[in-house]
């Protein structure tokens, strides 16, 4: 028995799908890191300013 059914070549779609997940998650992790860095900087600035003001008194 021979089957003339050929498995379609859909590798490009698979690569596209996994690129979407890699880029999407990569961007989210980068955004999380950048926001954390900026918020930490803001926290330290406020804290230093407040500490300085209490010292000046």
């Amino acid at each position: 028995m021979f089957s003339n059914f050929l498995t379609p070549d859909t590798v490009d779609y698979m690569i596209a799908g996994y690129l979407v997940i890699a880029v999407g998650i990569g961007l989210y992790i980068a955004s999380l890191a950048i926001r954390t860095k900026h918020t930490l900087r803001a926290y330290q600035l406020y804290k230093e300013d407040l500490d300085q003001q209490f010292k000046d008194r």
Partner: protein
Amino acid sequence: MKAKPKVLTGLDFLSAVMVLIAAGLVFFYAPVEVQMGAVQKVFYFHVATAWVGMLGFLVAAVAGVFYLRRNEVRWDIIGVSAVEISLVFFLIAIIMGSIWARPIWNTWWTWDPRLTTAAIVELIYAAYMLLRSGVDDPERRARFSAIYAIFGFISVPLTFISIRLLRTIHPVVIGGAEAASQGGFNMGPSMQWVFFFSLVAFSVFFADLLWHRIRLGELKSAVESLRVKAFQEGM
């Protein structure tokens, strides 16, 4: 800000390793499905990202209930953190599904019950983020978000059961196949193994991201407190 806990560093490592192993299993261990070819491998992470999306919306609804009962800001932070992560993962699941659909259904998108309800879920939670940003008073914002997350969650099980109740071309991989579905397949033991490992790997990854996002939320809350204090001190 509290120092990063060692458990979180361990979780970072564990989640990265598990996701990499899952990717390795998908590409090098899972068999190529005969009728669809390599694109069927999208299935493993497509379902895993959709699962993480739904899990996060559930976490947000539970956090909403806890916020309404206890009125503690940390539950609001947990809720918004879970929704933010789930929005990203659910969007990725929708896009991956669309890429899978193109060679199998011969279209990028169709207004099938599953696709339509999934798009509605994404829009409901995108609106959650937009509406949140429009409320200045933190307490009102948290209360509104909690109620919204609880009612918004109704859309999630509806999406899950849509392919089991309605006539759809979206395959039901677990729990039987609909006659009209296109792209359905029977999972062999190796496929099942990769599938369930991917689900666990992404669940761990979600927990890791959620923990990081909650820490960011707490830091933002601390900055807000310092800003108010600085304002009161006349700085």
